[in-house]
């Protein structure tokens, strides 16, 4: 048994018999997870770089980051923040002599299910003017004018409040879009193209970006939240959870809108369409009881078997040789000899993400 194997196995043995923060806070329904992202830049030639998203930095009522650590053979490493959307990532760099670049990032975090009581406002919570401007602003792929605003005005006709508008858009997304299993990764989120082409198929980064764009275009503050599923669903939806500890392809983004008196309200119309497509036996009707239930549930609540990374848009990878602006950061990125690897292809970088709940 080599040193690393010993360290890993001894850690596992200790973990198995103890409960971290979740135990102390069990009465508050917090769950503690560990996620390990291992990145190997395969066939590396020249200088290699990797960018690994880290858990959401801010503590919320539904997420807390406990800590992160990394190991590997990187010759340089640096934590980077975008300074705008709360994005944090681990940047690792290897010199040209390193033929097998490897970095492994371990993160611990806590989550608990999130639900907003939509029956009545709970407070007078409101965004500042600057915050509202920020969360109603367009991004490169989420414009708020033209066909986006035109569509949103039609969808929200007659709606008076932000809550009413947000609900109308949610119902429209569920009724008019579909999950396209052929979409690569989680999709791109090119909202204008979706509307102009009339092809409203896609995955979470498409459907929930469309939700955010429509909302923003009629003045409702909204944002995408990019992350990854880390555990099976406990709410009876096989399609809305992981099937194994290997979550390398379990990236998932959600959305929120802001309503005065309610704060940030979680929604996930994309997952309603995922249930429609994937929940056994598959291709369920919108009238199916399972679909109706999840449709109601996902306007105002999230099951937190999911890790939030960030709410970023239009991101540049620091130190990248020639990387395009990314519409979001939800995947591991890497480059070798100046060429960015395909972030939607784990095999081109060879990364694995494993997750486990501690004390479960």
């Amino acid at each position: 048994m080599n040193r690393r194997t010993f360290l890993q196995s001894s850690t596992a043995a200790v973990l198995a018999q103890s409960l971290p923060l979740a135990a102390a806070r069990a009465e508050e329904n917090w769950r503690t997870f560990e996620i390990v992202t291992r990145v190997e830049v395969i066939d590396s030639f020249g200088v290699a770089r990797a960018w690994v998203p880290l858990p959401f930095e801010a503590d919320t009522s539904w997420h807390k980051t406990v800590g992160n650590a990394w190991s590997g053979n990187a010759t340089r490493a640096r934590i980077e923040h975008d300074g705008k959307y709360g994005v944090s990532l681990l940047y690792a760099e290897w010199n040209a002599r390193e033929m097998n670049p490897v970095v492994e990032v371990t993160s611990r975090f806590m989550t608990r299910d999130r639900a907003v009581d939509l029956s009545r406002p709970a407070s007078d919570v409101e965004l500042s003017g600057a915050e509202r401007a920020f969360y109603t602003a367009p991004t490169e792929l989420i414009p708020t004018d033209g066909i986006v605003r035109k569509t949103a005005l039609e969808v929200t006709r007659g709606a008076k409040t932000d809550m009413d508008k947000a609900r109308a858009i949610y119902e429209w997304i569920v009724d008019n879009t579909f999950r396209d299993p052929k979409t690569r990764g989680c999709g791109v989120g090119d909202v204008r193209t979706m509307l102009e082409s009339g092809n409203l198929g896609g995955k979470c980064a498409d459907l929930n970006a469309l939700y955010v764009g429509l909302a923003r275009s009629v003045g409702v503050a909204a944002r995408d939240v990019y992350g990854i599923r880390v555990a099976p669903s406990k709410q009876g939806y096989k399609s809305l959870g992981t099937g194994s500890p290997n979550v390398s392809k379990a990236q998932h983004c959600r959305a929120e809108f802001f309503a005065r008196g309610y704060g940030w309200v979680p929604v996930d119309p994309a997952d309603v369409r995922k249930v429609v497509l994937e929940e056994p036996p598959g291709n369920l009707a919108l009238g199916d009881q399972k679909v109706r239930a999840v449709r109601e549930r996902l306007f105002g609540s999230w099951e937190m078997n999911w890790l939030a990374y960030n709410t970023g848009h239009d991101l540049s990878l620091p130190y990248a040789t020639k990387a395009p602006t990314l519409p979001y950061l939800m995947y591991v990125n890497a480059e070798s000899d100046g060429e960015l690897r395909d972030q939607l292809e784990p095999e081109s970088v060879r990364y694995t993400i494993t997750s486990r709940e501690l004390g479960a």
Partner: protein
Amino acid sequence: MLRLVAAIVLAAAACTGAAAELKRWEGGATPPLALEDMQGRPHSLADYRGKVVLVNFWATWCEPCREEMPSLDRLRSSLKGQPFEVLAVNLAEPLSRIEKFVSQMPIGFPLLRDRDGAAGKAWKAKLLPASFLIGRDGRIRYVAYGELDWSSDAVRARVAELLK
């Protein structure tokens, strides 16, 4: 097998190599630190005023933390009789787990428990290990994000400078 291990603190903008560097602290005021050790005895950083203190945030699941722990002990042992102390702050782990770790790696300095992670957040120790070298006046003087050989000559020179 991974040969090099390192870690950095999330809040750190500073570049680190595969092994961390001890850098002059430019992060502002020193946060308070008041925690209990494994036996429930209270420890406050203020109580150590007059000593050079190394505050090391760590966790058992953090490989670089485990790797550097023996060098912390070597540093402390080498400075026996001098006004120097190490306070190792475990980040939000249960006592049973810390005890198991200590049974495998005996150490001679106090292990404090940051049960809810509040101290770690105040000290911006989200990526581990995060180590802060405190001067005799109680203020942070140097910081290291990641694994460091605390018994190296370079580190000992910094500590000696603070002990003057």
